[in-house]
């Protein structure tokens, strides 16, 4: 045997999930990364496994993927810290309660278990929320995972099915289905899957993808302070959409008793440094929802870059004008959630099987000239 069926660039959670799925499907797989497993956006992310309804296509992908995570949960090793935590969407006022009701209807109609909480019920569910919240929505089957260990476990599973892992592998070019590495060696393969997040732009400068910077804080251990991931319902309007820098309250428990606090979004910046003003705005937003956080110790902060596309949907499927090359990138803030569904779509595409959900909304060709969605 000389060469691989598939080379996966990127040992983040998306590449790792693809490796596991492809190797399990019987393909000869090699995973290449220049850095340790899960050390890019995977390490920066919160690990929230969440069904979202920004669009029907986003719902389909996140919903399918959350089902896959829940099926996988009993098999995950303990260091993946999986929690069947649900999600609590918090509404501050009547307008947001109206949004709670329509979100509830949308999820219910599609078989996702949700429950509307009034002001008293949400205070009972999370006593550290400030008094006087209008209510919220509990999504029952969302979850949490510690992404770097999940990525490592996916790769271990792939290796059990014969996959090869090569770290410290710096890709400098691709030609005729051979990948050239900085050390002068070449990896020959039939297909290439690009799962390199924002870095994908180095090989595909035309891709309509921009890095969206985020800040995060982790606290010391305060077991029981919160029990759900708690996200403000205004999250979508305040954080997801606009072009300006924004923050939204997003607080998640970890199995250790620590809490992860987000979130911020900034475009047009590529500096990794903590920006005290953004960090400060983000924390101030959280204190509005949960004043009791103020005395808790922050032990570490960091930033990361989400690979964002104009329609907030990932790029999954064949790269236009590059035969044999496939994209699995552009997941913005949902790469952890949608890694498993992405892997299933990639397997279907490369094996010619019918995809488990329609692939069309995520095809990179939608952004090509004359592409399906313009």
């Amino acid at each position, binding site marked *: 045997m000389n060469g691989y069926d598939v080379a996966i660039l990127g040992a983040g959670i998306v590449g790792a999930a693809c490796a596991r799925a492809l190797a399990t499907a019987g393909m000869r797989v090699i995973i290449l990364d220049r850095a340790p*497993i899960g050390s890019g956006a995977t390490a920066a992310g919160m690990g929230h496994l969440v069904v979202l309804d920004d669009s029907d296509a986003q719902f389909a992908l996140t919903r399918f993927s959350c089902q896959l995570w829940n099926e996988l949960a009993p098999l995950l090793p303990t*260091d993946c810290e999986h929690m069947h935590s649900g999600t609590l969407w918090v509404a501050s006022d009547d307008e947001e309660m109206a949004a709670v009701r329509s979100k509830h209807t949308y999820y219910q109609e599609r078989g996702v278990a949700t429950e509307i909480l009034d002001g008293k019920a949400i205070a009972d569910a999370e006593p550290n929320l400030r008094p006087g919240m209008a209510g919220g929505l509990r999504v029952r089957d969302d979850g949490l995972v510690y992404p770097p260990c999940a990525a490592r476990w996916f790769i271990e599973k792939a290796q059990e099915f014969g996959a090869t892992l090569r770290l410290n592998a710096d890709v400098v070019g691709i030609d005729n289905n051979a990948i050239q590495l900085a050390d002068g060696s070449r990896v020959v393969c039939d297909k290439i899957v690009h799962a390199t997040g924002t870095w994908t732009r180095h090989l595909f400068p035309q891709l309509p993808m921009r890095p969206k910077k985020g800040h995060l804080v982790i606290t010391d*251990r305060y077991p029981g302070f919160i029990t759900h991931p708690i996200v403000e319902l205004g999250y979508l309007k305040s954080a997801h959409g606009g072009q300006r820098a924004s923050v939204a309250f997003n607080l998640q428990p970890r199995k250790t008793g620590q809490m992860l606090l987000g979130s911020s979004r900034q475009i047009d910046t590529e500096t990794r440094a903590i920006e005290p003003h953004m960090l400060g705005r983000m924390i101030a937003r959280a*204190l509005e929802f949960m004043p009791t956080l103020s005395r*808790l*110790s922050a032990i*570490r902060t960091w930033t990361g870059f989400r690979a964002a596309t104009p329609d907030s949907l990932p790029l999954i499927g064949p790269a236009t004008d590059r035969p044999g090359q496939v994209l699995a990138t552009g997941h913005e803030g949902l790469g952890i959630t949608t890694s498993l569904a992405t892997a299933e779509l990639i397997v279907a595409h490369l094996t010619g099987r019918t995809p488990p959900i329609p692939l069309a909304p995520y095809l990179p060709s939608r952004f090509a000239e004359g592409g399906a969605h313009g």
Partner: protein
Amino acid sequence: MADRIALTINGHPMETTAETSVASAVMQASGGVTRRSVTGEPRGPLCGMGVCFECRVTIDGVPHQRSCQTSCQPGMRVDSNPNFNASEASVTTLRSGSEMNADVLVVGAGPAGMAAACCAAEAGKRVVLIDDNPHAGGQIWRHDPAKAPSKHAATWIERMRRHPIEFMTTAQIIAAPAEGKMLAETAGGLVTLRFARMILACGARERFLPFPGWTLPGIFGAGGLQALVKSGFSVNERKVVVAGSGPLLLAVAAYLRKRGADVRLIAEQTRASLLRFGASLVWNQPSKLTEAISLRWQLRGISYRTAWPIRANGANCLESVTLTDGSRSWTEPCDALACGFGLVANLELPTLLGCAISNGAVQVDRWQQTSKPGIYAIGELTGVGGIDKALVEGQIAGWAAADQPNQAAAFLSERDQAARFVHLLDDTFALRQELRSLPDAETIVCRCEDVRFGRLSHFTSFRDAKLQTRCGMGSCQGRICGPAVQFLFGWSSDTIRPPILPTALANLADS
């Protein structure tokens, strides 16, 4: 006679003296245990100087407070083994919004920082001096309520008093949000410091190397135990073994003996170091030789051996330590082991500020200025070299930061001589290879997250190990395990981000 203070520890009333640290009071009340680790092991204080976070307790309902850095106060409620109760956590906004302006900000009030502050103030500059301890003196001149400061220390304390230096105690720098601006957490709230020049005198901490049993309560740093005794922990009639490496061991042993300890043994890992060290001192630092001879007299009758610990024994606290001299091993019963393997500079703040660092030391020019204009570094930060080097570098930086190069120049040759001591220390007390094989698979390396040696040995970088095991990701942020994994695996620490010490979330919020 010191004032008596009444407080409550783990629900029981207790009396102690003013200036006793909460750590010392808790150890007295609980048999040396201050917390349970994340896997349930009993732990006691290690470093005694606010670095290791092993002494964290809940004070007046606020969890995760470093008890070694906190003095007992009347009516204080201390809980060393709490079930965290969210509803008890008080809701106060700590941000006080107060501001201080300085021509020269000096960070660290050890000998280097004291000297720098004095000189800059004598040059007419407005000086703010900040330190996370309740008193000036740093580690080597650490305040001791039981004993007057040495003549040398008293001279500098007196010189400080003669000038209008603003001295902020029990205050920690947590972030540097912009050029010329620092945030400090103090008992009175958050303070914004604005300054034109800054002199970093952050000092050093002990290097700890993992060996089986080293996490047992009763095992301290060498300087760590000394600091705890100074803040009220009694070693009277206790059997103590002093081990590790470096001249600090002798000073600590002499101090502990004066305070009533039965020092059973001093175990220095380097062979015949004292002899070689003494011989070099004759040529390089005659004054230090006098010191060494005086120490030797104070330590008469105490066994001094070339040996190192290979295992600490005990169920819930230290009962004995097993040592080896390389060919033979034996077990020494003891109540305390004071053990440190030399010093490493506290590089977190200079790293955060972007100062160039090489071989574990901040790089400086002849005026002690770092690669960042207007930021100076002195003392242990520029190479671990002890008090003479600290004082002379402090004076150079103090005058230079106050734009008095002629005054500063007077100390340059003295500095160059003192700097030779750095290399002498490095050469004499180089760590032996055998220390790399002390840990077994079960030995904890990261004490915050209880990460064991066996889980770490196959990783290739600190970053990879951190992500997969949480090593170095706990409260101390790798301050203890970082130098250890550097020695064991050759891993260097990655970047520093704010906050450089854990701080209340409110302190990082935009007001």
